């Protein structure tokens, strides 16, 4: 048992932190939000650091790294509330590498690693909410492959991504496909999101699709679990910074002639925030360290993690705003942006109640980390 990061992992962390501190200011983020919520130039900078290819094998042009490296990177991006959807690159890299055939890998992986190809998971459907086994999208065989008819909602940067990984049913079998955005039959309508990023609804009408895997249920669950681990890690970074911002404010703001950090009611709230942060960090470690476990064990672990992280995110976000007082509910001050980021992440890849249901359904007679 060991929870230390290796020297290489620490170097990776330093590199990402340096980029975020110097290259991704709050002003730049604001500009990206105003411009629609996605900054391809910033995404390409992440690619230049090698991050979009983090889970792409080295033979395919990536870094061939694992969940702990993914966690380190996402934590640092979270600290700077970076808008660009790196979690999607992690999902696409790992899923195509893990489930695609040689031709599919050759067609997509080098581009994902270089940043030239932004591939996102388009799985959300109106009737499914967070369920992964409910899918109305239909794929049918056509000359040269398949065509898909589907409506997918709230697809990250859906109107600017180069391609989508799309779950759709072939008869009653869930399969995953790759659909290029500029194909015939693809319509997207984009919009901003609460955190300041971008998403789109994607409508596919007989859109041509390449089969990624017929074992779609397994692959989709894996994809979402990679997303959960990435979101947990990102959230730890966001919360760590949120608490630091709040602590600094409490130590600066004066009322009744003293700094407000001298008031015990506020001090105890800060202690409760620290509690939630450390529980969340512990469960983010747990999520990443279980990401390569056998599917049943992995699913159970990731549900536990996202449940904890959801609770922690909501508590820390809400309390950060409360402890700031009036300035906390303004747009001009940074803490509200951290709060909104946390709020949106709770509803990404399954919210807290959903994952409580998952934990409850999977409960065994035993208890603890190793059960």
């Amino acid at each position, binding site marked *: 048992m060991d*929870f230390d990061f290796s020297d290489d992992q620490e170097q990776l962390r330093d590199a990402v932190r340096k980029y975020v501190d110097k290259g991704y200011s709050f002003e730049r983020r604001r500009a990206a939000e105003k411009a629609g919520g996605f900054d391809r130039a910033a995404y390409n900078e992440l690619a230049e650091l090698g991050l979009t290819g983090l889970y792409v094998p080295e033979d395919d042009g990536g870094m061939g790294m694992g969940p702990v490296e993914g966690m380190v990177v996402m934590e640092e991006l979270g600290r700077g509330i970076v808008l660009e959807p790196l979690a999607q690159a992690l999902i696409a890299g790992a899923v195509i590498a893990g489930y695609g055939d040689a031709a599919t890998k050759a067609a997509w992986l080098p581009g994902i690693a270089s940043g030239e190809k932004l591939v996102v998971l388009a799985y959300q459907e109106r009737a499914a909410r967070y369920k992964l086994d409910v899918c109305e999208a239909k794929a049918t065989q056509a000359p040269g492959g398949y065509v898909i008819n589907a409506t997918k909602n709230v697809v990250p940067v859906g109107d600017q991504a180069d391609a989508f990984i799309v779950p759709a049913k072939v008869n009653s079998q869930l399969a995953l496909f790759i659909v290029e955005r500029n194909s015939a039959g693809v319509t997207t309508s984009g919009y901003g999101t609460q955190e300041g990023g971008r998403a789109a609804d994607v409508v596919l009408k007989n859109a041509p699709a390449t089969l990624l895997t017929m074992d779609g249920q397994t692959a989709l669950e894996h994809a979402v679990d990679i997303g959960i681990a990435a979101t947990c890690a990102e959230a730890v970074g966001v919360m760590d910074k949120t608490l630091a911002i709040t602590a600094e404010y409490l130590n600066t703001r004066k009322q009744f002639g003293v700094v407000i950090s001298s008031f015990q009611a506020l001090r105890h709230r800060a202690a409760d925030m620290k*509690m939630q942060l450390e529980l969340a960090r*512990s469960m983010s470690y747990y999520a990443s360290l279980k990401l390569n476990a056998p599917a049943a064990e992995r699913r159970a672990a990731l549900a536990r993690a996202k449940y904890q992280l959801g609770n922690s995110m909501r508590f820390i976000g809400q309390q950060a705003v409360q402890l700031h007082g009036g300035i906390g509910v303004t747009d001009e001050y940074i803490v509200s942006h951290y709060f909104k980021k946390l709020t949106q992440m709770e509803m990404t890849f399954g919210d807290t109640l959903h994952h409580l249901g998952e934990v409850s359904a999977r409960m065994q007679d035993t208890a603890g980390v190793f059960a």
Partner: protein
Amino acid sequence: MDLAFTPEEQKFREDIRAWVQANLPADISHKVHNALHLTREDMQNWAKILGKKGWLGHAWPKEFGGPGWNSVQKHLFEEECALAGAPRVVPFGPVMVAPVIMAFGNAEQQKRFLPGIADGSVWWSQGYSEPGSGSDLASVKTRAERQGNKYIVNGQKTWTTLGQYGEWIFCLVRTSTEGKPQTGISFLLIDMKSPGVTVRPIIMLDGGHEVNEVFFDNVEVPVDNLIGEENKGWNYAKHLLAHERTNIADVNRTKRELERLKRIAKTEGVYDDVRFRDEIAKLEVDVVALEMLVLRVLAAEKSGKNPLDIAGLLKIRGSEIQQRYAELMMLAAGPYAVPLIREAMEAGWQGNFPGGAVGNAPLASTYFNLRKTTIYGGSNEVQRNIVSQVVLG
């Protein structure tokens, strides 16, 4: 980073498990697994079995006869004992006073006191709290006045856990009123058979006799029983607190009790009730998160690279979770937690418990009893003060 224990650690765990299985008396583990009343003999019996093996002081270094285990090995040992249903080791001797004697006692004191702690033959008690000194421990008033080669001790200690069995007691006593309150405190070992020592029971809300008041009326204590220097006792007490760290979270026992909660919920027919089951599921995650927090602290201690100073968090969370499982057990039994039949909490009772499930008998008592956990060992509010210093300075 690696969540798994090493093959050597796994082997260590298996060896411990086999030994505990072979040596823990079945009647004792039966009582522990069912929260039945443990007698002094039960506790001492297990202490002596451990003592004979050299494991009562399982955290002791080799030079004092301990096994010299690292933090992970200690954790594995504690976990195997807890999961097997071993009674909690009464900590006052082997866990609390022994490390202070090792660190600050002289060679004579070490020779005199440590063997009786190591083999479980001498029962130690803790004399810290006083009626006027709870969270504000540095305000202790029990006086020790030096007269020649002895101290004359006058005053009162309270909340002395299992003090009715105590043979020796380590006390924080005031030897000076000069300067800050912390600077006039000394660490004194007192023979409880000394004339002038009186122990009075305090009956708790669950009806149990677990704690006591201890009165000192002109008790003569040889100066040889002073640990370290006069007026430096506060530093030694702080050293003792530093030895509590992870076991204060009590996560191993909590895992065992969560499994018991699930069994009770099944027996009572609420395990498949969605509203009740979700409450267990929440606790399930709480326990995993707490265990991860503990494992992070242990791993950091083992590697020595990034020490984590989050003992306050462990105390707060561990105690809240203990209270929660006890609460859910009681609520699972519902109306059958209501009957107060004390004999039904004794092993071997053959009477008819209302509803037929005698396992429900101690649930409310345990719930009431565990309200102490967020109060003792530095109340959770004091712990939040400590944690807030880490966050805010």
